[in-house]
Structure formats: C-alpha cells, structure tokens
C-alpha cells in the first residue's frame, strides 16, 4: 500500500495505490498515514482510482478524511471511484454527503 500527497495550487492531491481494498486489515494504517501526509491542508482531493473495494473500516477512513478537511475549514473531494466503491457509498448514502467527481482534474478545478 502506498499513499502519495502532491500539492497542486491550493489543493493537495492524495493518491492511494498498491492495494485493491481499504478494509479492516489496513484501514488504521491508511488513515494514520493519510492524516500525517495531509497535515493541516484544508482542501484535499482523494484519488481512489487504485481502490476496488471498501468495507466499513475503509468507509471510516474516508469519513475521517472528510471530517479532517472540515476541521481545517476546507473541503475533501473524492474521485476515481470504481463501481464497487461507488455502490458501497451509495448504499450508506455517503454519496449525498461527499463531493464525488469522475476524475482528478475535475475535482481540483471544482
């Protein structure tokens, strides 16, 4: 599992790669590493194009990132959702709460 944070203007792009799923097995590590990389950056775009599956712990990571951005007065945006990830977010209605975009550039420009 690899996380990479790159600043693009006022936005920090966080890319998750090297693992198909964020689940109970790696969620705590992913969340801790993501929060460390993001620091107090308020505006974040999370690129999930490398993630195929989320369980409840994985969803908890995304909720944690969403709350972290709100805490710093900014916005967290999510993009590159696979059909499996999108269906999980729709099932528990997080698609109504999160800002979801098709790709990174659209998310950054929004």
């Amino acid at each position: 599992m690899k996380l990479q944070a790159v600043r693009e203007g006022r936005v920090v792009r966080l890319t998750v790669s090297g693992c198909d799923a964020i689940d109970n097995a790696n969620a705590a590590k992913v969340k801790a590493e993501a929060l460390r990389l993001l620091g107090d950056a308020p505006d974040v775009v999370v690129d999930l194009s490398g993630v195929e599956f989320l369980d409840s712990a994985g969803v908890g990571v995304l909720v944690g990132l969403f709350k972290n951005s709100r805490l710093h007065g900014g916005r967290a945006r999510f993009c590159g959702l696979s059909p499996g990830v999108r269906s999980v977010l729709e099932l528990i209605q997080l698609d109504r709460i999160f800002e979801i975009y098709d790709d990174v550039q659209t998310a950054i420009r929004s």
Partner: protein
Amino acid sequence: MSDNERNRTAVGGTGEALPDLVELCRIHEIGLDLIGRSHDVDELLDQVLDEYEARLAALPSDALDARSGGPRPESARKLRGLVMFASQAAALKEKAVVASELKRRAAALEEANARLVAALEEAGRSRARLDGVLAALSSGIMILGADGAFLTANAAARDLAGAKDDTALARLIAHGVPRESEAEIDLPTSGGTRRTLLVARRAMPGDPESEVVLVTDVTQRNRAVEERVRLEKLAEVLRTLSVLSHKINNPLTALLGRAQILQARKSDDPNIAKAAAVIEDASIRIADLIRELAQVVRDGRQDAVDELLDMSVATPAMEKRQ
C-alpha cells in the same frame, strides 16, 4: 424520492421492509439530543458525522460486502441506523451550504455597509471642508437648483447682496441675470451709497440642472477703472499742453523780439509805437501763460488744468469787452 423511500430502497436487500421501531425511536432521540446541544448547522453536522463514524465502526466488517450475500439481520438493523444518520447528515450538509452562503453574503453586506459608512463619513468630512472653504471665501457663492430655486449660499453672498432672506437673494439673482451668463447688478446699500455686484451663473459640473452663482463686489474695481480712464485722459491733455507750449514758445519769442525792435527804433508814427507796445504786452502775457502751463504740466494736477483751460477760454471774451 423521499428519504424514507430511499432508505427502504437502500437496505431493501436485507429482506426487512421497515426499520425496527425501537431503533428508529432511539435514533430520533439521539437526533433531538444533538439538535438540543447545538444551534450551529456546521457544528451539528460534525456531531452527526461523529455519530455516523461511531456507528460505522460498530458495523461488522462484512456488512457492506455484497459478495457475502447481504448483511445478517443484526448488521442490517445497524445499517438502517447508519443510513438514517446519513440522511440527517446529508440534510444538514445542504443546510450548512445554504448557511455558509448566507454567512458569506452577510459578511459581504457587512463589508459593503462598512465601506458605505466610511464613504459617507468621508463625504461628511469633504462637505465640512467645502463649507469651511466657502465660508472663508470673500467672494459670494450660491447654489441654485432646477428653475433657479435657492439651495444654499455662503455668508459672503448674503453680505454682498444684503438680502434679508435667501429667497429674496435667489429672486434677485434669477431676475437680474439670465442662465449661463454674467451681468452687473447695482444695489443700494444701507449707507445710502450704491454697490455694484458682478453675478455669473454657471451650470454645475456633473449636475446640469443645478447652477453655481459667483457673486463678486466690483464697486471698487469699477471705481478704479474709472479713475484709470480719467488719469489716462489727464495724461493725454498734459502731453498735448506740453507740446503746445513748446510750439507756441518759439514764434512767441520771435514776435516779442520784433515788437521790442520796433519800439527801440523810435518811429515818428505814434501808432506803430503803440502797436509795438500792445504786441509786446500781449506777447509777455502769452509767455506768462505758457510758463503757467509748463508748471501745470510739471505738477500734473487736474484742477489746475481745468482752471487754466477756463481762464484760456474766458480771456479773449474779456479782452473783447475791454
């Protein structure tokens, strides 16, 4: 689709059509408790998200895994509770967006209001400075509105016009001077003399309906102009007298010389001697007159010139009578 319909659709795969009533009541109470603890939409959203996160953490890890054949009944109940909070959080987020926009607009309004207040204060200070300048001016300034209606005037304008009230002052200006022109108005003063005012009516820059009227006391200036014209005329008369006296003096000297020669010859004809004496006397008188004239030219006095001219005019007639 309503939230309830959406909830039923979302968890329909669990096999249960309605959420458990006890759990529903509990969620309702939690929601009321959260609302009671916060009146700020953003803060409330954070609290609902905290509750959502806590419930998410309580879900079995396979509850969201479609591959496992759907959640077990206990997981389905928790999932329904989670979805209820998601609905609340979604509604709160929409309100938070609206509240944020309202706050942004309120802040913009407040900022615009602050700028407006600052501009009004600056306008007030500018007005005070302008009033100070107008009050300090010795020239009178009046502002007329549409149709020559009086708006304001400085103290100098009132003093110069001697008008008892502003309406009378405006009427005096409007009747005496056409728009976009200037003219002199003669006014009696309280001391019995007359005062001449130069009144200029000009369109107000930026507000063509209004006019600015400049009132200047030109009494002294007119007197000065008259005095200058008089002095110029006097100078011209003196110059002419100077030339005349110089030109008369030369033939007069010859005339006097010849008369004295005729007297010195002791002619037998008494008429010649008498005529020579008369010519000599007249020549001497003319010479005296020219000396006086030269003195007047040197002094440059108007009254002396007048006296001399009167005498010059009177002399031939008097001699003729003699």
